[in-house]
């Protein structure tokens, strides 16, 4: 089941080959905007860079998840899911995965290259990568969950962020913590494990919650 849905989603994303590089470009652009605004002071940039990268990840998540289900709703595919026997939870699980892969995997691969421009310390970079790798799926999960919650409301681009940003805080805090600890005393902090725990929780329960939400919101 999961694999099949994945296949279809990827098909959609990669219909035009360029779209694989888009998240990267986007990331690059935003990253290069910060120095323009905050001034070229390298130490400052180096200091706040990991944080910035995390903020950008959140932004990316918001952008790619906030109208994720609208097409499926308008074309009646959500109804289709409800009337068919496909296990909704695993369907949503695969949606989370596909959305994550498409949005973040290219980024995680190329991040080391970008970080050269900010002369990041290798260890910090590693920790940053780990936190991103563990944290971003949670972000995507929450994002999609939120976009499903508000799907029956009048379209409003700002509503979703407001609903889900509070849920991003924990992930952010722990990620930021483990990074700052890493950069200060070069150790892998317990916060990292909490991030992993959050991830497990998200992937375990969010799909089920989403299937519930779907049943509730569509039945009217």
């Amino acid at each position: 089941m999961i694999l099949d849905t994945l296949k279809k989603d990827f098909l959609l994303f990669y219909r035009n080959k360029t779209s694989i590089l888009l998240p990267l470009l986007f990331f690059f652009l935003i990253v290069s905007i910060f120095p323009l605004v905050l001034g070229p002071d390298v130490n400052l940039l180096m200091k706040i860079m990991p944080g910035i990268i995390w903020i950008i990840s959140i932004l990316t998540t918001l952008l790619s998840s906030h109208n994720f289900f609208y097409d499926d709703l308008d074309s009646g595919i959500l109804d289709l899911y409800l009337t068919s026997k496909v296990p909704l939870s695993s369907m949503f699980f695969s949606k989370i995965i596909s959305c994550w892969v498409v949005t973040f995997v290219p980024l995680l691969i190329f991040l080391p290259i970008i970080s050269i421009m900010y002369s990041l310390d290798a260890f910090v970079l590693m920790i940053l990568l780990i936190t991103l790798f563990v944290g971003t799926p949670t972000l995507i999960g929450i994002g999609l969950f939120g976009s499903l919650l508000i799907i029956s409301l009048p379209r409003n681009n700002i509503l979703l962020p407001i609903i889900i940003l509070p849920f991003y805080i924990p992930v952010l805090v722990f990620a930021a913590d483990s990074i700052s600890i890493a950069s200060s005393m070069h150790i892998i902090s317990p916060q990292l494990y909490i991030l992993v725990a959050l991830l497990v929780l998200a992937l375990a329960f969010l799909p089920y919650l989403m299937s519930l939400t779907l049943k509730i919101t569509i039945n009217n």
Partner: protein
Amino acid sequence: MNIKRFGNLKFFYNSFITLFSYLPILVLIGFIAGIYWSLFIAPIDYLQGHSYRIMFVHVPAAWMSLQTYVVMAVSAFIVLVWKVKIMEIISVQCAPLGALFTFIALITGMIWGKPTWGTYWVWDARLTSELILFFLYIGIMVLYASIQDKRQAVKVTSILSIVGLINIPIIHFSVEWWNTLHQGPTVTKFDKPSAHITMLLPLFYMFAMYQVYFILTIVKRIKLGIIERDSQSNWIKELSK
């Protein structure tokens, strides 16, 4: 107007293409000569030693990166206003070339930056804005690539590139506006160039070579463009048989 369009295409094809067909070899030779000149003949810089020699690649590339954009925007404007077919092809083909020049400028600049500034990259205005220019080119290319109907794609990208013209002066004057790490106008101050003539000559020679390369590739692309666009018009058919 249909007739007129393919008419001037045909004229263009017959006259220019044949004229340009033998140039590539010359350009290659020209570049080699230029490299030799700048690496071995040109005098050593008393401040930067040999590392400055990368200037002969960097500066022209940088200039071209800006010039190409201007060319693209102008031809785009002509496309939208007078609907000249040839210009469509030019405005489309400028983007990848410009991206190339920008890329060269970036890379050589970074290489040059290591000895002079001690780091590959600093976030000063010019460097960043050049980076942005690179993204500008990429964005235009992406847009063109992702629109299926190419006739429509040309027009849309033309509009975009015209709007983008606003960035060029910013890149150019960034060094004057913000006194940055990056070299101010050393060459382009024509009243009293602050670089020695023996360095300027090879620089301008390389610049000329870049120009020739630019024109040449554009023309080649136009040739291909004409063939694939008007492939159904009968004079191409005659040509092909």
